[in-house]
């Protein structure tokens, strides 16, 4: 541990302690009469206004994975990684359209999760279970990846270099235990309040980075020229160029479908829906769609850090020494370019930027488990207090699971599953979003479409080899589309299959007069804008 930079480490530690204190204090923030209700613990009392929601939704959109993985991708392959920018542009018009309807119907009926809505809309426990299980399955590796982000900072800091594997993992373990403790206590109020610190750190770091770093690595012209030359050179591992500075015609379909598919998928993730449902008023969501793009701008600038890292010989040497781990590019850039005190702030931005979404994600997964598995299949008459207790415990289990993931299994396995998570979560889109507008689809047709797309998407993703490693699996998120012949995002191709199956089978099932479930919602529910949160009583007791 001799090579740990004391200044950077101290600053990181102080900021971590500050966030921990805020996390615990959050339990008292806007305190409700009783925290023993899932609306309080799991949705922060459904009370967040425009300002708080902006931070909370920003925490969803924008995780350590974006801070680490997007620039790593740009560092590795160039333009193809920049799809994250159009992705975070398209997401706002799309969400603008359907999120207010989802908010209204959930507020009217006291739904806490997207699967609650599906259950009420289609009267189908099976379809709701599919949506809930997909959500939990897709969220777990996402949490694990937050840990990977923290780990990359600890590695660069020198904390992960001990030969003793317990000592090596200890800092990560402590960080997560502390996070688990205050999430358990404060629920969604903790990430909402700590998101303030997180975002201040991130905005400061990014603005300083974008002003300070380019001059230190030779200026913007040099950065782009250097990237162009490097990306065009041949990668000895694959025998092809590393990438390109501008997306080539052959990559345009992949670029567009990755952006569109990710944008459609983002607000299907349980943690993003949790952020939407926690808002106080219907209009808060739409107002936020106009101010959330500020995060996209930050994301775009962070993405360009990848090219700056490429222009820094010290970073390239560091990445090479780690065995080609491009995830280290940004932390290494901070280490080599910034004075150590500011590097500490940058590290803290990444670490806290991972903890906030990890908290929201574990809460969202816990809500799903509690409402749509525990309550639905194990304990029909669960009281709000029991629900809350179960959700608190599950949030711990989910985090422990993610920790085991990262520590016991290979890191690349976590990344593969994250890739699959994106493919999977998009398959809940037809049930949720189509359901907001029409009851035309038959519940079993939606279930069949979901199943077909899940299986097909998983198989296709499994078959993609890592470039330069024949016989390997989960090497890419894009694949050649049957019939069309273009290379496209697997999630989008699977989504089209999903829709086609659901459409065709709905026609068939309707012709066969197969029994459809009861719909407990009214057309007016979808545009309702009640001022007060629903009364804290179990809503679906009759079903």
């Amino acid at each position, binding site marked *: 541990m001799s090579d740990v930079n004391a200044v950077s480490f101290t600053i990181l530690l102080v900021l971590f302690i500050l966030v921990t204190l805020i996390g615990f204090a959050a339990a008292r923030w806007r305190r409700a009469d009783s925290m023993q209700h899932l609306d309080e613990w799991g949705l922060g009392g459904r009370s967040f206004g425009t300002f708080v929601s902006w931070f909370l939704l920003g925490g969803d959109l924008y995780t350590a994975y974006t801070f680490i993985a997007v620039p790593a991708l740009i560092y590795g392959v160039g*333009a193809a990684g*920049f799809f994250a*920018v*159009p992705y975070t*542009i*398209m997401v*706002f*018009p*799309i969400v*603008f*359209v359907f999120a207010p309807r989802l908010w209204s119907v959930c507020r009217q009926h006291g739904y806490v999760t997207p699967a609650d809505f599906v259950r009420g809309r289609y009267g189908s426990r099976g379809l709701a279970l599919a949506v809930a299980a997909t959500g939990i399955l897709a969220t777990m590796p996402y949490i694990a990846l937050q840990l990977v982000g923290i780990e990359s900072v600890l590695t660069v800091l020198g904390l992960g270099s001990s030969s003793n594997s317990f000592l090596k993992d200890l800092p990560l373990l402590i960080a997560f235990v502390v996070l688990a403790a205050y999430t358990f206590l404060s629920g969604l109020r903790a990430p909402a309040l700590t998101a303030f610190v997180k975002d201040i750190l991130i905005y400061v770091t990014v603005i300083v980075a974008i002003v300070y770093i380019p001059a230190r690595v030779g*200026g*913007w*012209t040099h*950065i*782009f020229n250097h990237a162009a030359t490097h990306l065009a050179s041949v990668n000895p591992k694959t025998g092809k160029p590393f990438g390109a*500075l*501008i*997306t*080539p*015609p052959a990559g*345009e379909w992949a*670029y*567009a479908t990755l*952006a*569109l598919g990710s944008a459609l998928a983002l607000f299907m993730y349980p943690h993003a829906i949790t952020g939407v449902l926690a808002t*106080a*008023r219907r*209009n808060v969501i*739409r*107002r936020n*769609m*106009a*101010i959330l*793009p*500020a995060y*996209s*701008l930050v994301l*775009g600038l962070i993405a*360009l850090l990848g090219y700056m890292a490429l222009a820094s010989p010290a970073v390239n040497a560091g990445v090479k020494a780690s065995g080609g781990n491009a995830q280290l590019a940004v932390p290494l850039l901070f280490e080599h370019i910034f004075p150590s005190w500011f590097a500490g702030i940058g590290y803290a931005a990444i670490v806290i930027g991972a903890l906030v979404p990890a908290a929201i994600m574990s809460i969202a997964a816990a809500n799903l488990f509690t409402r749509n598995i525990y309550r639905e299949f194990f304990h029909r008459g669960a009281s709000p207090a029991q629900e809350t207790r179960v959700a608190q415990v599950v949030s711990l289990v989910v985090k422990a699971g993610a920790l085991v993931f990262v520590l016991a299994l290979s890191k690349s396995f976590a990344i593969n599953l994250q890739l699959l998570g994106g493919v999977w979560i998009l398959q809940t889109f037809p049930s949720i979003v189509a359901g907001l507008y029409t009851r035309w689809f038959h519940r079993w047709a939606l279930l069949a479409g979901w199943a077909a797309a899940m299986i097909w998407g998983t198989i296709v993703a499994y078959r993609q080899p890592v470039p330069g490693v024949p016989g390997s699996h989960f090497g890419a998120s894009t694949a050649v589309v049957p019939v069309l012949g273009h290379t496209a995002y697997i999630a989008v191709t699977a989504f089209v299959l999903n829709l086609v199956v659901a459409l065709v089978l709905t026609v068939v099932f309707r012709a066969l007069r197969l029994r459809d479930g009861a719909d407990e919602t009214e057309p007016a529910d979808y*545009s309702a*804008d009640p*001022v007060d949160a629903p009364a804290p009583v179990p809503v679906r007791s009759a079903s």
Partner: protein
Amino acid sequence: MTQPSRSGRHPVITWGVVAVLLAVGVAGTLVVPLYARTAPKLGPFPFFYWYQLAWIPIVAILAFAAYLLTSRTSRTSRGAHRGQRRRDE
């Protein structure tokens, strides 16, 4: 708090305008051949990069315009239907 719809603007027209605004917001960066090129550069930035970054403020403005339009429509229609509302806005 019933507000008569100003200048007789019909909700359907408003929603049509909103749909166009939002569709433009998606299409601007979805059609990759539009911007997969180096020139014209903005300073050292290739077109590919500054074009996409420029769409971020544009989409914010489009979303804000859509927000203003929809909040006015829903206010007038709701006011007409129920005659209640406006508490914490």
